[in-house]
Structures are given as C-alpha cells and as structure tokens.
C-alpha cells in the first residue's frame, strides 16, 4: 500500500517534470531573430527573411488577418498587410483578404491582444500553435492511456510525436497544422465517448471549428461523423426477430455545427458576397507578385490555390507523401512505424478494434486527401506538414511497441530510429520550414538541397531560428552547440522514458 502510494506520487512528479521539460524545450524553440526580436512585433515593418517567424506566407497571411482584426477591427487587409500576406492573398471587388480559412487567425486574436499589451504580439500570437502542440501531446498521452498503454509508454508516445516528427517545426509557425490536429484528436476522443446530446453538440462544434481552421478537416473528420452515426443505431438479433433502433439524437450534432457554419457563411459573405464561396475559390491575386521589397525565398513557392483534389494526383502524391526524401512520412516521421506495428499487435489481440478502425480511417483519409492535392509537397515546407494529424494518430501507439517484453538488443535499432527522428526534426525546427520541393529546387539559381540537408546547410551558415538562442546565447555559444544541446536533452528524455517503461513493465510482471 505504501509502495503503491509512493509509485503514484512518483508518477505525479514525473508528469510534472515531463511537462516542465517539454514546455521548456518548446520555449527554447520559439522563433525570433537576434537584434531584430522587436522588429517582428511592430505592425509597420516586418522582416520576412528565412528562418524568421515570418519566413512563410502560411504564417504571414494568417497573422495579417489577426493583426487587422485587433488593430483595425476588420477582416479586410490593407495594402501593406496584403503585401505582407502575399502570395496567399485573394482579392474581390477591391478588397484584399487572406486566402486561408480564418480559424487560426481568429484563435490568434486573444493571444495577439495580450501580446499587444506586453508589446510582444507576434510572439504571443505564434505561441498559440505551441500551446496547441503541447495540448496535442497531452491528448496523445491521454488516448494512449485509454488504449491501455502504460504510464511511461504513453508519455513516450506523446514526446516522440512532438519531438521526433515534423510536428515540432510546425509548433513554431502560425499555421493550421497543430490546431487541426487538436480538433481531430478531440473529435476522435469525442467519437469514442458516450453518445448523448451534449457530446453530439460538442462534436458538432468541433466539426465546425475544424472547417473554420482548414476545409480538408471536414474530410478527415468524416470517419468520425460516420462512426458517430453508426453508434446511433442499435441492432439486436433475437431468436425470432431482428430489431433495429435509430436514435435521432444524432441530429443534435447540427445544434453545435450550425452556429459555426452561420459564422463561416457570414465571413464568406462579407468577403465574397456569397455565403458559400470561400477565399480559396476566389484564388490568389497577382497584385503583389512583383513586390521586390517583400521577395524572399519563401515567396518563390508555387502553391496551388483552392482545394482541388484529383484522383490522378495519387500516382505521384502517395510516394511523395509516404516515402520520398522530400516529404515522406516514413522518411521524416519514421517513428510512426512503431505506432503502426503496435496497432497491428493490438488488432491481432482483438484489443479495441473499433478504435483502431476509426484511427486507421482518419489516417487513410488524411493521406489520400493530400495525395490527391495538386501540390502534395505543401509548397516550401519541412516534411509532410499535411500529415501531422495522421502522425499524431499513429503516434498514440508508439509506446506500446516499447512496452513489449523484449531484450534491450531488440530495441537498439528502434531507438536509433527515434534518435534519427529527433535529430532531423530538431534540425528542421531550429532552422527553417522553407525547404523547396525537388521540382523547384532544381530551378533555383543557387543550388539548394530539397531535403533536411538544406536545414543542415542553414545551421552551418548560422541561420538559427530560436529566439532564446538569438536573444541570449548568440554571443556565448555556437548555433551548433545550441542545437546539439537541444537534441541531447530530447534524447535523454527518450532514454529515460525507455528505461522507465522497462522498469514499469518489470514491476508489473513481478
């Protein structure tokens, strides 16, 4: 009894320690430039050079909207902001607005507001993504526990998701990836939960917010919608009759969904004079294509506007997003392999099959949706940024793999793969997300690698994106030492968790 209490206390302490380290690591990765830290906080002049927070229009376009809402109480971008947001800007009837759905920008509003008071609006606004990233890690840990993973095994799942996949890079950008992942994880939790009106209304809200953040979330959440629908059916095979019951409670999803859809419709109407025409459908404006003062490497990216999905894209899209050295899931986020293996182990043992089916469905829809996308690369990006939701769902099971009763030698290669994942993704997070796809890299005047070799090159040139490093350590240690230290701390956490998992299993068997 005494030892049980002690174990419990140790676990609570470990949890605090774990989240403390995670938060510190995330803080240490937040983007900012030496000598220019404040430059990013002004609404007048902004530096969009590579490895800074504004290196990608994926972030600037959303940030411009947040800034416009707080500063000018409008969702229309003035010319200066439109230039800043370009090329992801649309124009309709003389009004400029962000090409993206506004969810991320709306979420950023309170952060910006507080940041404005503290005179660091950019840092606080971008912090929303970092907070979502930590929440996602927490959700993965929670889902892992629900799946039956051990305490430390689930912590490992969460940690590897955040630090051994490209989710880390996108914890420091003002983009949709972490927010979408959070909504999808919450939706999964909700779908697996008890079906009552409250949960259905919450699910409706989540679905609506998901659409508000990024339209493809609507597709990725479809398996949840179908699963929830099926759960409203009750089939009873009697000896003489088959009884089927369908609860119209399902329709309460609409109660949560409709208000968000109305809000979305009004947003669209204000911009495009149509409730259903989204900014992507208007397409990019060419007005700022030759703005020399804002041209950076990131602006040479050639993303396609809109959400055109073509089955023909699967021919190249699948290999690009799964195995290529440019954006391959298994190349950048190789740790998910252990999640997959674990799910197969679960499946064979008939353990939580329905959960597995739901998770697999979402992962498959995520992969298929973006493989059909005309630009599966996601423009200039680091790793398969579109597959971060799938990465999160696959990560849940990782801990299970390390929980098996196997020798240390068995885990040698898996651990090396984990270290590789941490190394690659720390490198990406500490430098830049702006890696060109091969098709564009070969066209550039300056020879530019199209894999994480480019990030390695940037690090060698001293282009490190960490605000902490640039503000405090730039004159004391080299960028490499900072990144190595970051890497070693992550490795230490992984190894510690690995040892704790083995210890936990030993205690369990004893």
């Amino acid at each position, binding site marked *: 009894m005494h030892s049980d209490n002690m174990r419990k206390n140790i676990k609570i302490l470990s949890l605090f320690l774990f989240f403390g380290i995670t938060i510190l690591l995330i803080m240490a990765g937040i983007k900012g430039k030496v000598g220019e830290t404040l430059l990013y906080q002004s609404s007048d002049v902004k530096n969009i050079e590579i490895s800074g927070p504004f290196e990608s229009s994926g972030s600037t376009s959303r940030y411009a909207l947040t800034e416009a809402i707080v500063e000018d109480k409008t969702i229309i971008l003035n010319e200066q902001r439109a230039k800043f947001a370009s090329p992801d800007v649309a124009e309709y009837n003389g009004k400029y607005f962000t090409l993206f759905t506004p969810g991320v920008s709306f979420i950023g509003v309170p952060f910006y507001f507080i940041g404005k008071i503290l005179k660091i609006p950019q840092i606080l606004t971008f912090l929303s993504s970092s907070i979502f990233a930590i929440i996602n890690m927490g959700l993965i840990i929670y889902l892992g526990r629900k799946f039956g993973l051990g305490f430390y095994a689930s912590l490992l799942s969460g940690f590897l998701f955040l630090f051994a996949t490209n989710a880390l890079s996108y914890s420091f950008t003002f983009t949709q990836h972490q927010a979408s992942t959070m909504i999808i994880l919450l939706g999964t939790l909700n779908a697996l939960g008890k079906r009552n009106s409250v949960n259905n209304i919450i699910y409706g809200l989540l679905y609506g917010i998901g659409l508000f953040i990024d339209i493809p979330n609507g597709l990725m959440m479809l398996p949840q919608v179908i699963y929830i629908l099926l759960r409203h059916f009750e089939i009873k095979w009697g000896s003489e009759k088959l009884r089927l019951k369908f609860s119209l409670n399902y329709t309460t999803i609409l109660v949560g969904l409709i208000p968000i859809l109305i809000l979305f419709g009004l947003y669209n109407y204000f911009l495009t004079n149509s409730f259903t025409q989204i900014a992507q459908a208007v397409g990019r404006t060419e007005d700022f294509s030759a703005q020399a003062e804002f041209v950076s490497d990131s602006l040479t990216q050639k993303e396609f506007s809109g959400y055109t999905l073509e089955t023909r894209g699967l021919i190249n899209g699948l290999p690009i997003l799964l195995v290529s050295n440019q954006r391959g899931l298994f190349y950048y986020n190789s740790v998910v392999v252990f999640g997959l293996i674990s799910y197969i182990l679960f499946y064979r043992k008939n353990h939580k099959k329905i959960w597995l089916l739901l998770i697999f469905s979402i992962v498959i829809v995520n992969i*298929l949706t973006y493989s059909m996308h005309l630009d599966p690369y996601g423009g200039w990006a680091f790793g398969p940024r579109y597959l971060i939701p799938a990465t999160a769902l696959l990560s849940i099971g990782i801990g299970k793999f390390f929980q098996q009763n196997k020798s240390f030698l068995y885990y040698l290669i898996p651990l090396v793969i984990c270290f590789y994942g941490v190394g690659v993704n720390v490198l990406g997070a500490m430098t830049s997300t702006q890696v060109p796809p091969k098709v564009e890299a070969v066209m550039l005047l300056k020879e530019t690698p199209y894999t994480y070799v480019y990030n390695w090159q940037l690090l060698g040139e001293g282009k490190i994106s960490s605000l902490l490093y640039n503000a405090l350590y730039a004159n004391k240690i080299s960028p490499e030492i900072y990144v190595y230290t970051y890497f070693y701390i992550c490795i230490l956490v992984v190894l510690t968790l690995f040892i704790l998992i083995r210890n936990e299993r030993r205690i369990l068997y004893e």
Partner: protein
Amino acid sequence: MNSIIPEIHFSISISKIENIKKWLDKYMVIILVVILSVISMFFFDHFLKNGMGLAYNDARSHLDIGRRVVEGLKPGLAQIGSVWLPLPHFLMIPTVWVNSLWHSGFSGAIQSMISFVLVGVIIYQYLKKIKVGLFGRLFAVFVFISNLNILYLQSTAMTELLLLATMTGGAYFLMLWFKENKLLDLIKASFCIMLSTLVRYDGWFLFLFSIGLIAYYVLNKKGYKEAEGAVILFATLGGFGIFLWFLWNTLIYGEPLYFIFGPFSAYAQQAQLKEAGELFTQGNLWLSIKAYIYAVFYNTYTINVYLGLIGAILFWKDKKVKKPIKIASLTLFAPLIFNVSALYLGHSVLFVKGVKVDTWFNVRYGLLLMPTIAIFIGYLVDKAKDFRWIIFGITLFITIFATMSKDVATIEDALIGSSGKNVSEVSGWLKENVEEEPGFVLISVASHDAIIFSSGLPMKKFIHEGTGKYWKEATENPQEWASWIVMRTNDVNDMTFKDLADTNWENYYNLVDHYPFADIYELKPEFKASVQTQAVLANNK
C-alpha cells in the same frame, strides 16, 4: 434531454431475412444483368449526348469497317480487312446497315455494352466459385462498374470491353476446370479464348499462356498422356480463331502473315515510330513496366491497384484456396505480362503522361487489368472482415473524387492524344459541299476512315482501296472517276497520293482547302461533265 429526442424502431423476422438472403443468392445474376444493363444504356446515352460517344478515331474506323461489309461500292465480307482482328466487325453486321445505328455508334457500342454486363456477371461468378461472400462479390462488381474509363469504353465502338468479356470469361471457365475438372468447362474456356483471339492479339497471348498453364498443371498431376490430351483438346478449339485468321489472310491477301507485315499492320506503324525515335520502351524492361503500370494507375485511380495487389497477395497466401485455383488465377494477369512484353519487344506503343512523354496514346490498354483488380479487391474485402468498411470507404471516397475531377484518361487519350486528331474540318467540308452533289470522293480508308465516318455521307460515295476496280480505275485516271480527292499531299504513306503519283492528276484538280490532316481537291469545272457519277462497274471483284 435524450429522452425527448425520438427514436426510429424497425424490426424484421429472422426467417424473412433468411428468405431474402436465399432469394438474393438465387436471383442475383438476373438482378445484376438488369441493373448493369440500365447503367450501360444510361451511360451510352450520356456519352452520346455530350458528344464523346465517338471521340476515338478508331471507334469511327471500326464502324466504317462494319458498314463497308453491307454498303458501299463493293460490299462484302472481304471488307473486314486485315488491320484489326475481325470479331468486333462481324458483330456489327446485323445492325450497322441502319444509318442511325451506324452514325450514333450504337452498332459498335452494343457489343461493348453487352460485354460490360457480362464482365460484371463473370466477376460476380468468379468470386462466388472461390467462396467469396455476397458483399465481396457485389463490391467487386461495384469497383468494376464505377470506373469511369470502363463506363466510357462500354459506351463506344472500341474493342476493349469485348476483349475483357472474352478473356475474363476464358479465365473464369479455366478456373472452373482447374477447380472441378469438368471437361465442359475446358471447352467453354477454349471457346471464350478463341473468341478473344479474334478481338485482339492479347487473346493470342492468353491462348498460349493458358496452354502453358494447362500443360504444367496436368503434367504434374496426371502425367504426359493426360497433359497431351488436355492441351490438344484446348488448343483445337482455342486456336481455331487464329487458324481462321491465317486462312483469311491467305485467301484475301495471298499471304498468311499479311496482318503482321502488311502495309497497314501494327508492325509497319511501329517501324515508323521506331524511325522517329518514339518507340522508347523497346529493349527497356524497366520503362516498359513503368509505362504499363502508369497506364493502369491512370485507368484505375491508383489506389485500386494497391488494394488489388494486397488482395492478390492474400489470395496467394491463403491456404484454404487450392493450388489449382491459384494456378488458374494467373490467367487474370495475362494482360500485364502481354503488354509489358509487347512494349519491351517493340510490338506495341504506349504514351503515358509522366513516362518520357507528355501526351497520351493507347493509355486505355491499362484498363485491361480492371477485372483482375476488381476480383482481387472483392477477395480482399471478403477477407478483411473488420477492415472491409474501411476498404469500402476508401473506394467510395476515390470514386466520388474521380467523378468530381472527371478523371477519365481514356477520353483524354481520345481527344488530345495521338488517337484524337481532329478531322472535323475536313469531314465538315465534305458534308457541306459533297452531300447534295453527284460524284465520288477518292480517299484512302487506311489514312482517313475517321473523315469518312464523320462526314456522314453514305459509304457508296467513296472510292477507297477496298473498292476493287473503282480504286484501280480512279487511281489511274482520277479525272474520269473522282469529283473530289482527299489526301495528305506529298505523304507516300497516304495510299491515294502514292497511287496517284504516276498520273498527272494536278492538271485536273484545284486545291479547295488545306487542313492539318488532309487536303481537299475538287475536279476543275471543265472536266466535270465527263466524270463518272454512277456506280456502273459490274463484276467488281
């Protein structure tokens, strides 16, 4: 809050469910025939109305070949020619004499439409015989019939669906024979394969491949004598079509291998491509495989290939499936082996976007694996149990997006690829200026059959290579027979230009229009009075 929300209740007795199951099992083939027939007719009508029904120039040529058997200056069976194998054109004969059926393309499409229904039923039956459940069987049929390329090719006068029906039928009966060893099944298989040998040369490969499988299986199981008997029995009927084709070529052209080495053969076409450096798959196995697999991807939306592959692996690993059935199932892969081999050996040409070129030609060849893919997906769904709904979802998801993005490679192949040269300008000119006027048009069908079809003029208005004395007379003294000449000037591959080379035809004709694919010449007014405008030649042989 839950209690105030109503619920819908429904109940049905178990015995009723059992009866429905039995009824479905008993009548499913009939139900399928009805449903597939309706779908088939709907899509024929759809493509006819949107003007895509005869997008392939080859489709128009096929229809013209059939039409020439029953109408023209020299009608008769000899008009079947040697460019293509004869069965599709023979099947047109009962309907092609009706103008509306000829020009709507229905004469050529009807066999594709019937074949579409047949393949659907064969897929269903194939899976039933290997003990796949109702859901798996129906799902496989759905995968097949929801493919837009299949739906398009079943609506047009091309030969793919007929080939699929005969080949898949052959594979089905061969599997039955391997499974149950009933002689009748072997005869049925050889009959189907014999028909396929009269549709496309893919059938010839299937014939030889099947002989190999039969010989291997029976030799190992029952010894030489039995193997010899089985092979002879199979080959006698299965090879009869090939024998007839050799005979036909000997009788009509005086040379059994005329279809291989004749001036309009695929061999001659490939030789030209080779000279132009466009036969890039020849001698390159990797490129041959890549080109064909890409063609399959384009035709089947990629993901189905992966699902089919997983199904095939599971099928091969399944210990419950007997070895003979596994051996027989290899026939389903005959199109893959044949096409890759043909590309490698330079006997076939395939242009697929993304493989060396940025255009299309013959991309529809990739569709020949569709029944194979459907069968193995059906098997996969049956075995996947819990995962079957995910596979169902994936397929539905892909089908919806394929439809939304109008992903029909075969239509693109027809319209913008090398198959789709736009002949409407020339045919439009003919329709406008020749229809009401007396007189003949001198033209080569080998080069311009699509123009003849698209002009909408009756076949007897044209003097072509197949019109015997008319052609001979008109190419010697064109001014006495042809009021118009349509040809590619200075192109010796155009038979009209080639045969007119020794005459002074330029003195009698004015160039009235010049188009990318042909020039139109009209007899000068001063010679019009003496030109022949009636079909006056008797004993035209």
